């Protein structure tokens, strides 16, 4: 450009109109976390300053993603292209209600984890880089939610993956290294599959912009051609791996219980949902025709995932591994929504994703508090926590109800939507699997509550005697830092349970945005789209 003697008319390829400052909200979540993460990385020796700096940037992240959601709801889908190159040539960030909602919820969860981590992550963990990695993880998560380009989605996946590796081995315990090897290998294979599918997709359409592909697919005469079917199957396998769906779920229970509890909380909340989000994006927005022949496969996988998750949870006595299986069961519900594919089902899946992000994070945080109170994660060694703190027992019960999908908490409404959609669409098996899985989850969570809270003391305590367990050598909980995030998340769960209209409308709008992508296409290509 500088020094080029030939004058080329660039107005056809470049954005020439000035960009409003509000549109910068599109890149703000990724940008803020990237700046904050790199600042924390430079200051990693300063363990006193790091939490403050990290939390300041996380607050900024929440504010900017809230602003982004408001902006999207007021102005419809918005697009910004990097470097001013018009799509489909430039990399576009396109934000619709679905992406903005998930970004906001993810940011809130990350902020809660940042606050919770003040207590549970000690000086060593901070020096190893908890806050930088948390912020960079959010860069990847937000980028994945907001991007409008398939290859860019791959890059954001890698960003969040490399930060998650860093978080997973924070502290370098033996058990962490073991878990990280399995997590690392399987996720890397998953991203390679994603890359293969993306390469083939580019080979077919010659473009990577999601909106552009969606348009070209709908113009294509024969949508069920072999190559597209291959691409669709590869995408499904790749994202199922990311989301820990049934046949490829084994990395999750092998690794999620190994790191610091707050890191498990963030992972359980966010990572798998990014996989589900990508699945919705690819199958509902980009390749909607492929859902016709993939729906049965996805539905079968959903049923198996629902049952594996719930049965696995029943078979565990280690609290964190039990919760890991519940993450998997939740993924099954969302996959069921994708398999049904109607407006109601996709809305249910989105609502369920929001609910699952919040409730799984809160449950892992509660497990951390239980460890501090009872000195163990093993159900055999826990007991008498009700006597220790009745309020906390009540809070745990709320979370247990929510994750099982019982009213009046946030898990109930998305399940109602999903089951109704399943029966309405003639896929009664899916609805039945969701209900059975919910029932088994209730059993698993009920057992946790009975053993850890309700009975008098750990195994071997005679009936009727109450032994108030003291934190067996574990560090004492200090201050409000671990409680505040749990209260915030539980409050959200109760609020979504009692006042579901707001969230329900938001998810219906999000589902409409991907099912009827006219707004999405217009935002990318201008009015003629």
């Amino acid at each position, binding site marked *: 450009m*500088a020094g080029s003697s030939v004058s080329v008319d660039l107005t056809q390829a470049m954005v020439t109109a000035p960009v*409003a400052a509000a549109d910068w909200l599109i*890149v703000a979540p990724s940008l803020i976390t*990237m700046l904050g*993460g790199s600042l924390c990385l*430079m200051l990693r020796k300063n363990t006193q300053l790091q939490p403050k700096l990290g939390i300041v940037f996380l607050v900024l992240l929440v504010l900017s993603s809230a602003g982004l959601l408001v902006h999207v709801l007021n102005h419809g889908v918005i697009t910004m292209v990097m*470097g*001013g190159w018009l799509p489909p040539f430039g990399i576009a*960030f396109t934000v619709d209600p679905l992406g903005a909602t998930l970004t906001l919820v993810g940011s809130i969860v990350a902020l809660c984890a940042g606050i919770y981590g003040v207590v549970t992550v000690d000086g060593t963990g901070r020096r190893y*880089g908890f806050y930088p990695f948390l912020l960079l993880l959010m860069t990847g998560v937000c980028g994945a939610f907001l991007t409008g380009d398939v290859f860019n989605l791959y890059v954001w996946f890698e960003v969040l993956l490399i930060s998650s590796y860093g978080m997973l081995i924070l502290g370098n315990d033996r058990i962490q290294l073991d878990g990280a090897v399995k997590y690392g290998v399987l996720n890397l294979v998953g991203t390679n599959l994603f890359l293969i599918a993306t390469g083939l997709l580019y080979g077919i359409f010659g473009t990577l912009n999601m909106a552009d592909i969606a348009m070209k697919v709908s113009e294509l005469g024969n949508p069920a051609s072999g190559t597209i079917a291959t691409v669709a199957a590869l995408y499904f396998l790749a994202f199922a791996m990311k989301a820990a769906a049934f046949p490829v779920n084994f990395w999750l229970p092998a690794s999620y219980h190994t790191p610091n509890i707050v890191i498990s909380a963030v992972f359980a909340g966010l990572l798998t949902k990014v996989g589900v989000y990508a699945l919705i994006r690819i199958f509902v927005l980009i390749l909607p025709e492929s859902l016709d022949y993939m729906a049965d496969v996805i539905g079968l996988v959903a049923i198996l995932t629902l049952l594996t998750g719930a049965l696995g949870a029943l078979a565990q006595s280690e609290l964190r591994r039990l919760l890991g299986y519940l993450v998997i069961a939740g993924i099954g519900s969302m996959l069921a929504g994708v398999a049904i594919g109607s407006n109601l089902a996709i809305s249910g899946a989105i609502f369920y994703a929001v609910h699952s992000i919040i409730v799984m994070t809160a449950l892992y945080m509660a497990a951390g508090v239980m460890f501090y109170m009872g000195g163990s994660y093993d159900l055999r060694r826990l007991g008498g926590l009700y006597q220790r703190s009745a309020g906390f027992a009540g809070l745990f019960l709320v979370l247990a109800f929510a994750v099982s999908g019982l009213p009046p908490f946030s898990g109930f409404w998305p399940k109602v939507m999903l089951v109704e959609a399943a029966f309405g669409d003639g896929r009664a098996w899916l609805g039945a699997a969701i209900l059975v899985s919910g029932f088994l989850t209730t059993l698993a969570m009920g057992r946790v509550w009975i053993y850890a809270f309700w009975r008098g003391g750990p195994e071997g305590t005679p009936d009727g005697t109450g032994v108030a367990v003291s934190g067996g050598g574990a560090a004492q909980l200090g201050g409000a830092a671990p409680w505040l995030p749990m209260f915030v998340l539980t409050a959200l769960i109760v609020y979504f349970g009692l006042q579901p209209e707001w969230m329900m409308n938001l998810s219906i709008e999000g589902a409409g945005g991907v099912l009827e992508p006219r707004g999405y296409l217009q935002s990318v290509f201008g009015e003629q789209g």
Partner: protein
Amino acid sequence: MRTIIFRTIAPYLAALMVLFSIFVLLRGHNEPGGGFIGGLIAASALAIFGIACGVASVRRAMVFHPMGVAGFGLFIGALAGILSFFTSQPFMTSQWLIFHIQDVEIALSTPLIFDIGVYLVVVGAIGSIALALEERESD
């Protein structure tokens, strides 16, 4: 590995490689080269220096921790994209500043800052991985 020949030549070799990596970084805008490959060359210079003279002396020579270097690179890379905010252009639109000193045209641009950022990220990240591997080898 620590023969006298290698130990004598490694500092010079590393210095030359770092110099060459900066050359590759700067020519990268219009010709083959750039931040990533330059950073790789610099990181391998660090690795050679580490094999010859020990990891401790590399860390002393770098002054800053490799991860801190990577963080700084990421920071200026992100800042380079933000500058276009002030000209109401989309994120990462390149901004140019062209000086004329006598007859020489010097073009400074945000892509250059971004490339330097990439260079530092690669030096920091790959350097710290290489040093970690070498450190284990010695004990």
